[in-house]
């Protein structure tokens, strides 16, 4: 046998205790769901917020879509609640219609002519605008036609695309790509995979979701995927992954002509399928680091690190810090975090056809770093908003100055103005130099607006509105949640 240095992908590790746990968790979740549904739980309250986790905006109609994941299984399903994003009315907000999705749903994204890019024309059955929601317990992807109806509580029917993964479960993360081949593809990452192997399903959105979607299941190596970000200029789909044996990697798929299924349903790069790269290990940079959410900079800017010239795109990555010592001892990642960070990483092209990530900033943000949201600014690097779940924080990072400029944490009496476990962020440019952020509180079941003056983000503050009694109060929506 000849030993060939390097080039190990780390695929095919033996089944471990971890993998058994990974397999067991979706099973347990399914059993729990079955029990819940057998108990004739009430139907979803489309005008309520109930563990709002993920959000997206349909800009054309100024609609805010909130995924309620019904974590306590109080209802028969989860659902999407719509709000009029342009309303300044605190309290209930202006509630729109909604759609059913499974309990414990995954992420949501909106594809409209602006976000679907060159593939937004008539490509088969792909007809934006629509929203995609990952159905974790159903191993399916849901298409919700947009706009949502304006009548509160009115339901719009969604289309279910069965992903039918062979080795994975719990679809969670979402992405969309439209490359040079003008094929609109959705990408769905699974939170569970046999042997802790990560899997991503590639969905050709041109196919009829009812009669049979074109789905390719892609083995992306050890570590299940979490969050995606697409670099169109390099046709590269980045994704973060869960820790495995102290490795927490940023990996990527070179999309090209897409991933392809060959013998036995296996995606094979050597036969022309996409390239899945082993990636870059954050855990090797900082012990206990595990990437969570990722967004790319809105534009490229001159490279600043690693001696690279030309322009670079940056990645903003929320990084969860876990007790690596305990993980090493127990053989599994501890369920809780001990810290969290925002990493700013430049992505210059190295000489071997892959990016050569360069860490520009590592900023501590608190325990359980969550969503990352990019706010573009003309002529300047981006503003970046980050939620921190366990510490109840919203940070604003100014990439132009390279520093945190604002943190919204507990107020003077120790209460978190954004609620406990601030989770997802959506923004809206108000057009007056102010960008309004909408932040969901997972545990307090509301959405709070934060106004960010982009020229002076340190002056960001919770937006206010006038309630029915004429009082100025925080602009916070909870629908008709009791």
């Amino acid at each position: 046998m000849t030993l060939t240095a390097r080039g190990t992908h780390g695929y095919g590790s033996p089944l471990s205790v971890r993998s058994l746990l990974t397999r067991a968790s979706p099973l347990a979740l399914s059993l729990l769901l079955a029990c819940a549904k057998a108990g004739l739980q009430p139907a979803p309250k489309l005008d309520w917020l109930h563990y709002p986790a993920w959000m997206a905006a349909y800009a054309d109609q100024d609609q805010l879509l909130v995924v309620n994941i019904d974590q306590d299984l109080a209802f028969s399903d989860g659902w999407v609640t719509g709000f009029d994003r342009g309303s300044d009315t605190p309290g209930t907000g202006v509630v729109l219609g909604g759609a059913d999705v499974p309990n414990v749903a995954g992420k949501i994204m909106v594809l409209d002519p602006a976000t679907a890019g060159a593939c937004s024309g008539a490509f088969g059955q792909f007809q934006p605008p629509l929203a995609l929601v990952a159905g974790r317990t159903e191993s399916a992807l849901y298409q919700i036609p947009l706009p949502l109806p304006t009548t509160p509580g009115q339901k719009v029917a969604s289309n279910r695309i069965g992903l039918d993964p062979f080795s994975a479960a719990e679809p969670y993360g979402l992405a969309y790509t439209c490359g040079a081949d003008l094929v609109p593809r959705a990408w769905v990452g699974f939170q569970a995979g046999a042997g802790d192997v990560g899997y991503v399903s590639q969905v050709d959105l041109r196919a009829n979701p009812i009669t049979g979607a074109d789905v390719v299941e892609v083995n992306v190596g050890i570590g299940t995927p979490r969050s995606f970000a697409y670099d169109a200029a390099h046709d590269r789909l980045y994704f973060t992954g869960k820790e495995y044996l102290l490795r927490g990697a940023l990996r990527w798929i070179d999309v090209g002509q897409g991933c392809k299924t060959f013998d036995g349903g296996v995606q094979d790069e050597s036969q022309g399928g996409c390239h899945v790269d082993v990636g870059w290990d954050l855990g090797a940079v900082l012990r206990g680091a595990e990437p969570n959410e990722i967004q790319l900079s809105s534009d490229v800017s001159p490279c600043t690190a690693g001696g690279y010239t030309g322009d670079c795109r940056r990645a903003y990555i929320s990084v969860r810090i876990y007790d690596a010592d305990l993980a090493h001892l127990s053989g599994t990642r501890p369920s809780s975090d001990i810290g969290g960070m925002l990493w700013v990483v430049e992505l210059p092209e190295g000489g071997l056809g892959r990016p050569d990530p360069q860490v520009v900033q590592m900023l501590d943000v608190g325990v359980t770093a969550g969503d990352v949201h990019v706010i573009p600014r003309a002529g300047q690097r981006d503003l970046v908003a980050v939620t921190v779940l366990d510490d109840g924080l919203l940070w604003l990072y100014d990439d132009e100055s390279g520093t945190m400029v604002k943190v919204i944490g507990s107020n003077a009496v120790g209460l978190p103005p954004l609620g406990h476990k601030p989770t997802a962020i959506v923004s809206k440019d108000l057009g007056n130099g102010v960008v309004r952020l909408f932040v969901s509180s997972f545990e307090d079941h509301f959405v709070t607006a934060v106004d960010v003056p982009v020229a002076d983000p340190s002056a960001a503050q919770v937006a206010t509105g006038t309630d029915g009694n004429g009082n100025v109060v925080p602009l916070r929506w909870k629908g008709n949640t009791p």
Partner: protein
Amino acid sequence: MTRRALALAALALAACNKGSAGPAFRLAEPSSLAVFWGISHKNPGLLHPYVAVANTGQDELVVFDPVDDSTVAAPIDIRPLSIPTPDPRPALVASARFGLTSSPPATDQPDLLVAVSAGATSLQLIRTWADTSAAANPDPGLAVDANDSPLSVDLGAEVIDLRAMPEVDGTGAIVPDRAWAVASLIGGTLAVVEYQLTETSDSSGPIAPVSGAATLQDLGFEALSLAVDPSPSGNAAMAVTLDQRSGGYPQNPYYLYAASLDPISGSTYGVAQLDMRGTPGAWPVRAIDAHAPTRLVAAYTLRERQTSYRGGYIQENAPTVDDTDLAADGGDFNDTAASRVYAYLDPQSCGPKTAVACGVAVLDPAAGDVLEDPWNPGASPKQYLPPMAVAAQPLALVPGTPPAQAPSTTDSTSDFEHYPYMAIIAGGSRITTGVLVMPSADGRIYYADLARWELPGNQYEVATFGVETQVTAFRASGSDSPQIALYKPAVEPIYSNYFATNTSAALEPSSLAAAFVRVTPGFTPDDLWSVTYQGYLPDFVDDRVAEVEDAGNGQLRVALQSGSGSTATQVVNVFDPAYGVRVGDIVELRTTPILFGNPPDYACPDVSQTDPSTGTYFKAIEGKIVSVDKPDASHPGGSLVLTTADCVPLKLGITPTCEVLTYGPWTSKPGCWAELRGASLPVRIRAGGGGAPDDTARDGKDLVVVATDAGYMGRATTVSGNTQGDPNYPSFSADSASEAALVALCPLMPFDPLTVPDSCDESCRRTCEQAAIARRVRRRHLVSAYCAQDDTTCTSNFSFADFRFPSFVYPTASDPLAEPYPPPIGPAIAFSVGVYTVAATAPDLLVRDTQILITTHAGYVPSSRYGAGTNYGAGARPFGAVTFDRSADSNWSKQGDGVRFYVPYVGNTVLDVSPSHFNSDTHVLR
């Protein structure tokens, strides 16, 4: 026991706080520490040292006593004292001593303590003095004005780093009752806030900012890290009179140092030296050239080692001190102290791709440059001391002074007399004059022996015990075909007892050839080296997508990219010599029918299928590189021009043959080569092997050498046999000796595909390849011990080093103890290689993939302290560190503890460690 059970047991153990008594620390993401002297109810009426902790997750500061590692309790005695900060997430705290006045006594003076929060611009003063207000709070707290408003100063921008120090006047003298807090701000501004201590006949305090505004200075660069030299003023003269404030006043109180990624004073990358004798807001800036941008900085003044054998460490468990004449002790350290600046080089601006090795650079502020190599003074061009290599990225640099009452020997616990020496414990114990503690990204706390410019190891590279630098494993080719073998050196025996029993061997194919490999302490890494005939180049062992074009004359052009021109992706810079692609190398074109649209008359081998006759996958059709072309608009990484490949030397059954039908050119599929034009397919690249593959010559074969970690190492060319070894040993050497000369001849470093000159031909590319390899095998550690035996043995007979490391330079003077004795310099690995024929009847051809494997062991594991993890392993995300000398006051009865370092970890922990003690003496404060 299952792993889960182990985990539970560990958790149970972790519940035991082995650090402290009193209320738990209630730490939540502690991020910064500062030692200050102040007043609290824990020691009523007494000025006492405390440590302020920025307890970030709780939006507060908490305080503990470093003498006994116990918290200062809150009035309700169930939790530590909490000092809430006006801004959430306190991130930085700093303290400074005020200048002394004659009356009242110095020991009555509380210290300045300030804090700033993440993302905030307000510098908050913390009360350390006795509160004489109506509330009369006996403990430290938020300093407020008469209106109960926080005594804060707005700095105008967010803070990157924060330091505090005694104020100095224009002559450099310390100003009584004044101190500065200095903050580096985003945008390249320095903010200085002046504080005054009010003293009366019966009390010291309060402290207040002199002005409500900071004095700002535009630096022109952004300071990522600030430092002052904390070495006590007596260190140079060694006539120290320390008060109980450990360390007294700093030796060079008027210099502030700043690390930066930006050029300083126009064009110098390194460290800025600001002279605080000037007017705040206009402190003169002087650049110290570190030859690269810097991220962290520290300063210290100490007596460094002598360059002779005596400067090594092995025998140093007690200082050679003449108490009556310290300057003439004839000992191991220079008689006079030198000011040094230590800068952690930006890891993205150093390393094998650059002209600078990575690590912590030792700077000579007097020269404004990296410290000159003390073993090569006056050389032209100037020779520099290499940076101290680090095992992981340091997150802070904190120098530690020797304890005020230092032990007489490294194992003494009762006799304290030898300031300014301190003991450190690594693989053994030794005496030094200063350490630099480095909490690092891998969760460990490393420390440097500053007197010897190295991180001490847990093992010795040169030792008669343990596992010194050596070859630990050797896998022979092990076939009945011709094998790769190594020549015995004709001179300079390298290693071990092999020669006693194998004196006649000249070309050794077995694992005994391990003895013929030269290694060098400080250069040879822990690595696995492969030496392979026609092996894969390490960066091309996996599939890489390539576009194939017609190059005319029956040749193909292959560009490793997807698509073409400006929109091409996955572009590989094949022209970059660092990757080792040469003319004569072999490109495997990995064809499958699906790539060609599944034509019914598919003309190429299908590498996805197995050959029924052999059960192995069909081999790829190959091309031989006849030209490596520079990048152009269509091929942004360059391209390879291929002609049909040579035959492939292999053994089918027992028959050696150079195969062409189903290997290499695939003459059984004559239509394939033409079909490849226009294809997009995966490729891999092998080394060509030198010469013709079907000849039976034993010399001139190029074997590709790969280090698993370090990468491509070039080609080892086989040489003809000798009867008693190779007089030209070694024929292959991976060394860095010629790096500068090679780089000077290479126009491609750094490689920029947009500016490749036409003049760089294949010969030029070979030079560049050697330059790139030289950079990969630079010194990794400055070895400061050469002999593991006692003085007499080492100086009279260097047998150990002589026997194993002949590249050492030995003293020849009559007094070898005094003669400069430079660290060894040599190759990371070297050998002479040949082709060994097993027997006269054996096959003649050297078969593709014939290989030997060599495992090398560096013999060096840098020593560290750790324990912040749940299982007392390495924790995650340490921040900075502070130092505290428990020997400073004999009333504490802690002389044996010496100097301690406190390191906060994000996982709700502060570690109390000491390089002078074993890691078992690490205390976990939670």
